[in-house]
């Protein structure tokens, strides 16, 4: 009776699953076509498309940093503050103190690693929920940024950085986009094709199962925090390279978009899991929506409507995918 299902290869293609996986890609294409039809000259220009791809690569980077601890079951709300700190450290060290750019960059990334360690220490040693710890450390880092910058924007950074981030273009697209694409490929590979990625997933989904399967749960979570801290700081360097200066506040506005993209991305490509290419698609879906709407002359508050709405909608959608089981992020 169950002959058909028992034979490998005879299973029919699961159309529902495919539809679910590519629904966001489809929505992105539709949105692109709609704005293209409404504003063909401005929206479909290569300048606009390459700007969209390049300018939001920073958000892609930050979202990819975020999905690492999210996969392991921890929140990191300090990513945006770490980004700002990374940017400000490069600016202060290089522009104000004359430290060579490579050294300044290494210092910034090192600071990101330290932030990750501090987060991990409070979460793992004191057993505090990551949401609370990183909410606190994020605000704390923000204070440091305002202090070292004197609350002002710092420019005058070595132009080499800007050259290697946005000025140099390949196929008309700034280099920073390729950096983001590379990181996405690396994470896609690590999550899907290494045993490290498997361990990460089990730590996030079932701590006790992971522990009893011989995984050092605390060590995995520790390195996830460090990874997100270091990538966030790197994102800060790219952010300086994108705008040519470091300001103490604008980086913080990336926090909600990164969460929106991470959760929206978890409904695509590999539904139900935080995944690299889903995050990439989600970022550009949000960017196309916001760029298009602002070209139609809609006020800037649309950004908040779009990002905030997308976060809640994305989480609601992913709950439907999971058949509304209670979420457990602990």
């Amino acid at each position, binding site marked *: 009776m*169950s002959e058909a*299902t*028992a034979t*490998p290869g005879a*299973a029919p293609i699961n159309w529902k699953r495919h539809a679910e996986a590519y629904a966001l890609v489809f929505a992105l294409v539709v949105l692109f076509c709609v704005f293209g039809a409404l504003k063909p000259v401005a929206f479909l220009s290569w300048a606009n498309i390459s700007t969209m791809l390049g300018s939001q690569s920073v958000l892609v980077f930050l979202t990819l940093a975020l999905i690492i601890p999210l996969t392991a079951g921890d929140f990191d709300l300090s990513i945006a503050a770490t980004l700002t700190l990374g940017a400000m450290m490069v600016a202060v060290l290089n522009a104000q103190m004359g430290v060579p750019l490579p050294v300044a960059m290494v210092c910034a990334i090192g600071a990101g690693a330290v932030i990750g360690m501090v987060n991990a220490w409070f979460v793992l040693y004191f057993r505090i929920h990551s949401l609370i710890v990183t909410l606190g450390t994020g605000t704390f880092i923000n204070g440091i940024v305002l202090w070292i910058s004197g609350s002002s924007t710092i420019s005058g950074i070595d132009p080499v950085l800007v050259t290697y981030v946005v000025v140099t273009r390949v196929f008309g697209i700034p280099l920073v986009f390729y950096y983001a694409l590379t990181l996405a490929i690396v994470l896609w*590979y690590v999550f*899907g*094709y*290494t*045993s490290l990625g*498997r361990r990460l*997933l*089990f730590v996030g*989904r*079932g701590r*006790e*199962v992971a*522990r*009893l*399967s*011989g*995984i*050092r749960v605390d060590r995995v979570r520790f390195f996830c925090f460090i990874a997100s801290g270091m990538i966030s700081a790197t994102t800060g360097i790219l952010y300086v390279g994108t705008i040519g200066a470091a300001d103490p506040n604008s980086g913080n506005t990336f926090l909600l978009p990164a969460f929106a993209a991470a959760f929206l991305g978890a409904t695509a490509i590999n539904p*139900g899991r935080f995944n690299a290419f889903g995050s990439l698609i989600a970022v550009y879906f949000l960017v196309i929506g916001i760029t298009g709407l602002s070209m139609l002359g809609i006020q800037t508050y649309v950004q908040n409507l779009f990002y905030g709405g997308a976060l809640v909608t994305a989480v609601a959608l992913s709950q439907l995918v*999971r058949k509304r*089981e209670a979420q457990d992020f602990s």
Partner: protein
Amino acid sequence: MSEAFRRRHRGDAPVLDVRHLSKRFGNQLVLDDVGLEVLPGEVHGLLGQNGSGKSTLIKILAGFHDPEPGAELVMYGEAARLPMPAGGARALGIAFVHQHLALIPSLTVVENLRLNDLATQNRVAINWRREAEKARATFARFDLAIDPRARIQDLPQVERALVAIVRAFEEVKDATAGGRGLLILDEPTPFLPKAGVEQLFLLVKSIAADGAGVIFVSHDIDEIREITDRATILRDGKLAGTVVSKDVDHDGFIELIVGRKVSLFQSAKPDLTARPVAARVASLSGPMVEDVGFAVHEGEIVGLTGLIGSGADRVPSLLYAAQRARAGTFSVGGTTLDLATILPEHAMAAGIAFLPADRLGAAGVGSLSITDNISLPVLSDFMGAFGLSWPRLTERARSLGRDYEVRPNRPELNLSALSGGNAQKVLLAKWLQTEPTLLMLDEPTQGVDVGARQTLFAALNGAASKGTAILVASTDAEQLAQICHRVLVFAGGRIVDILSGDAVTKDRITEACLKSTTLTALHPREEAA
């Protein structure tokens, strides 16, 4: 006998008189025309093996199960409705205290006492001082010195049980007119220290002295003889008898519980203790386990059993460091592990596998696929030039699914989509594919249907015949009899009896468990021989 007893007790109508109670699950009759009578002021014991129908009977009284038509329920001489409507038990004055007590640890005693009222009534301006005074007065009536403002989690285990019992009794009193009511205590004692049990008995006796009836469910025959006036014994869903507890001795009770039937023929169990030792445990101590030592031989299946609270179920998780042991050493295949310091990955590296009882909490992840779950311990075998090879992983999951008769055999399904038995097959396959030196299982067949059980047993036998040593912790005597070469019986955290060869039968195991509380620990050295 019963008449003489009846005269000793005041009050004309029994608190509870239930007759012709039957219950069928599928084509199996789990309760067959059972009756039970509890008199005012009586503590009535209810005994029977696992699967004898005790818990079904209690669940019918609670309204969880509907009995077959024809059952009658009379309380204080008035006929009551069966099946029990929702909330009916409470309105009739029947209250339950289960082993897990249903208290909220982070709230205070008085908050827990008022939990039900607060949940069902809308009150404003609760006067906590007055509530606390009321609680204090209630405790004083039973000679209990419990601070109503203390948090439950700060109380010793005994006082928690006492609070739960007092709460249940007060609810009964509120629901019925003075002194009436029936309190059902479902195995309240296994986790209490000796002194605590006596305190609990005093409370139960003073509640009964108020005129209420108490049903006391227990496996412990000594406790039943000490606290109860009469006892009803169920065997295989039928009434084995109702006796006056003082008139029957310990062995008499065991005979009533186990019966005098000849055990079904089982193939002779070979003695494998001459084979090389696969794993040796020495002086293991930890929560509920005291100075336990034993050896498991290659290809041998050893059962660990005992009454609830005996500590047998803790042994595998202590050996695997799922729970931290206080002391002990564990030698497996040339490696000696210090149980006070090891981590699960050390146990794994020594060739030990552990399948915990909590299937979707500790053994596998329900929200991940069968392939994900099954492949976790063997990922390194599937590394290709380009990282993990998913086609090979899926193929492995599919072929294991075929071998272990997983239905449906679709590796892409989430583990939570499978029935309990099929999920257990997947999890057993997950560990057996690693070909461990020693496999440990805790209650491997809980919630597993009969058919799937046979598949699991066949898989365990297959692994044993290839030389894997297996430890099974279980309270299911029938299952242990079916698969084990030897059974170690625990009581009070120590090994008190060892059954081997022809003695490994369902009845002998049950009997040994029931007798276990009166036995003293075997010295570890005797066993090691």
